[in-house]
């Protein structure tokens, strides 16, 4: 049978075959592929993200006080108290415990991300797929609308939307949905763009043309051939969008369009309240919620970036050949036993 050695240093970007169920899961597959620094970045990102999710899940156990708690048995906490044993990160100008609000804030952040991304992902994919595949006037109109919204400052749009949805002030779920929905509308064009671009690229692939030649119906082609191939980049967009959602939420909170402190803890809101503290040298009310945002976004972005690199053959780092002598010895041994005649067999095996 015919064989093809992997051509000079450019192995196929496709996943290695038959690496089992675990090997096919999106993130784990990339983890296996990655090497060196890229693996370091991915692992660091995954670790931070995992901590973020765990803190959100166990917030009630970790946080010493409630997010809206102003006093305990010993009396009121007091405003702007510096870090102490009772309040390891101090208290805010409103008299809340900073540490507790940072911990509870993870819950709000996770909820908003999940709701926002889940909403936008479905609508965005559907629109992108249909618009990219069918083309025509619908496509042109959607592209112009999508581009217009995409090019517009998403924070401003989110502000407008949160006014619309909640009138500007809100309860926990009201606030979360307001933030999430405003982020959703802003992100739909992003998913739409990516999926549409992919759909158009895949539409021209010979395997889609061959499905057309066979007489497959448009829905069959879209869902059997295009959809799954077009959504390969989704884990990347998903993570990058999550971090954007977090930043937008914080921005909304900072401008006073977040969630009331009595409804839930929200880092952007706390930073807004810390604005005047900083001028008088009170650092703890700003530092900790800010760091929480940075860490959460950093973790998610590291995962997204690493996935992006691994998916892009141009950006992927490949294993470098090991130290000369070691490899040489190993391969010489292999090649002396396998001459040109038996090499093809070895090669086919490698492919399988």
């Amino acid at each position, binding site marked *: 049978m015919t064989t*093809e050695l992997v051509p000079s240093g450019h*192995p196929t970007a496709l996943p290695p075959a038959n690496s089992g169920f675990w090997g096919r899961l999106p993130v784990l597959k990339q983890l296996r592929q990655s090497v060196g620094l890229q693996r370091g970045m991915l692992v660091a990102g995954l670790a931070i993200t995992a901590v973020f999710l765990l803190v959100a899940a166990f917030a009630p156990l970790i946080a010493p006080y409630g997010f809206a708690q102003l006093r305990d048995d010993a009396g009121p906490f007091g405003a702007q108290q510096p870090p102490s044993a009772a309040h390891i990160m101090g208290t805010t100008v409103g008299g809340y415990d900073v540490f507790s609000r940072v911990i509870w804030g993870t819950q709000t952040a996770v909820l908003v991300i999940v709701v926002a991304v889940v909403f936008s992902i479905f609508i965005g994919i559907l629109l992108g797929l249909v618009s990219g595949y069918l083309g025509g006037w619908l496509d042109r109109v959607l592209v112009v609308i999508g581009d217009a919204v995409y090019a517009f400052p998403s924070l401003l749009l989110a502000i407008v939307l949160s006014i619309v949805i909640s009138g500007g002030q809100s309860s926990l779920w009201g606030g979360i949905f307001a933030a999430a929905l405003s982020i959703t509308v802003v992100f739909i064009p992003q998913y739409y763009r990516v999926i549409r671009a992919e759909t158009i690229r895949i539409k021209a692939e*010979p395997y889609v043309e061959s499905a057309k030649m066979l*007489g497959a119906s448009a829905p069959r082609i879209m869902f059997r051939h295009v959809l*799954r191939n077009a959504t390969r980049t989704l884990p990347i967009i998903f993570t990058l969008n999550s971090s954007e959602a977090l930043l937008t939420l914080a921005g909304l909170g900072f401008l006073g369009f977040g969630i009331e402190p009595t409804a839930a803890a929200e880092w952007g809101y706390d930073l807004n309240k810390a604005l005047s503290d900083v001028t008088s040298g009170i650092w703890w009310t700003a530092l900790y919620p800010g760091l929480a945002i940075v860490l959460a976004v950093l973790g998610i972005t590291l995962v997204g970036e690493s996935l992006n690199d691994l998916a892009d053959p141009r950006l992927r780092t490949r294993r*470098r050949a090991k130290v000369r002598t070691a490899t040489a010895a190993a391969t010489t041994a292999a090649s002396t036993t396998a001459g040109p005649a038996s090499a093809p067999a070895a090669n086919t095996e490698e492919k399988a």
Partner: protein
Amino acid sequence: MNDVVEITDLSISFATDGGTVRAVDGVSLTVRKGEVLAIVGESGSGKSVTAKSILGLLPETATTEGAVLLASRDGSHTNDIISLSPSQLREVRGTDVSMVFQEPSTALNPVFTVGWQIAEGLRAHGKVSKAEARREAIEILRKVGIPEPEVRVDHYPHQFSGGQKQRIVIAAALVLNPGLIVADEPTTALDVTVQAEILDLLRRLRDEFGTAIVLITHNMGVVADLADRVVVMYQGLVVEEADVKTLFASPQDPYTERLLDAVPRIGQGRVHTAEREAARAVAREARAAVGESALAPVVEASHLTIDYPGRFGRKGFRAVDDVSFRIAPGEVLGLVGESGSGKTTIGRALGGLTRITGGSLTVHGFEMLGFSERRFKPLRADIGFVFQDPAASFNPLLTIADAVAEPLVIHGRAESPRDARRRVDELLEAVQLPRSFGDRFPHELSGGQRQRASLARGIALEPSLLIADEPTSALDVSVQARVLELFAELQREFGFAALFISHDLAVVDLLADRIAVLYRGRLVEEGTGAEVLDHPSDPYTRRLIASLPVPDPVEQAARRAELASIQADSRGR
């Protein structure tokens, strides 16, 4: 010393996802002053890697052992490329050795003028004034045959044709007059008529400048045309080294022999054509006996015209212009042409992927003008197809069995891919693939295997018409030979009519009963293989045939003279 390059015991390994792959394994060879050494091999033979090692251009994933001794241009000393520091390497590149790339359209930077890019080589090796660099760029452009070099020097790459771009790439490699040029598949991306011109240019380099050339190629015709000596590589090893006449006359290694046998030659197909014609005559009589019309063609095009609309009110582009032909039942029509001749467009129109804009095209009696997918769909079951790129014509997420079952499911012959598995297994057997391959994913198959699977899908519904668009052009010669054989076998067995599209005259001649030659959207000649290839009447066909290098150095030398006279002829008129 007389050797420009002396490679001793060179081994190169690459680190890949699947572990370390040894691409070159203990290769030794020499290149003498002023000679053309061809390194021949199929994909994965390590020929490109070997050649790139002469310039130290290997990627960082490579580990190199052995010695590559390169003589300086004046012959005063030699350098071992492998042990040079990066800055020393830089010194050598461009002055002692330079490179010509396969794809001229990607080897030129799109945002700089060609003059600037040629001058970059000069600037990299010492200070030159702007005027001086420009003068030298113009001079070298003139030498490689770019007309009006004073004007063209300020143009950007996209303003040149493919052949001209390759001349510019050669000019850029030549500007410092290196003693050696490494040409990596320099004509593979070019049309055959342009290839002949570039080969002439390279020959002139050797004869007039005394430049040694390392020619990397998979094309035996190119080797026969240009090479003085030949090194045959297989799986990273040198299997044979000989001067060109000896190699073609009496190959020593069995692999070389196989390789030479696999190269299609014009005239090989005549016997089969005659056999098939006889068989068809029998079939016609049989059909006539039961009262069926013997003459109703499967495909009939008359004054077929296909325009691509222009965008933003620009003038459109006429891809196919007033073409008429017909394909009788069971007949194979070979459609030959160079890039942009409209051959693929015709194939796509037959399959209903491209709308025709004028004339008439009927497929199984169905008029394609005013095409409607809904009415055409039932007919699709009777049209099979095979695409050019076997790597891309399968959905990477479906198994081979699922992909082959697609036509059966779509046209209601099976409920689900699982339901169709028995039929799929039969089909895989018909194309000589093991049944177990049905469970594999496309990327787990080699190119040849994928193209077999593609054939299996094409014939799944036993169509009476098969459209094959360059089905073997992405394959190695030896693989191509076997796929072509398979195609012929299937055609004999299933008796389908076929439109076989190719740029390669020899391949078409092997399979086709009749050959149609397209040139710039027009059909310039049509007839049996014997008519078209032995007695071409159209000047373009004559040039096309003469440009095709034959894998025989002696015969090729004679043909070259013939081509020169045709070219002089056409220039004279």
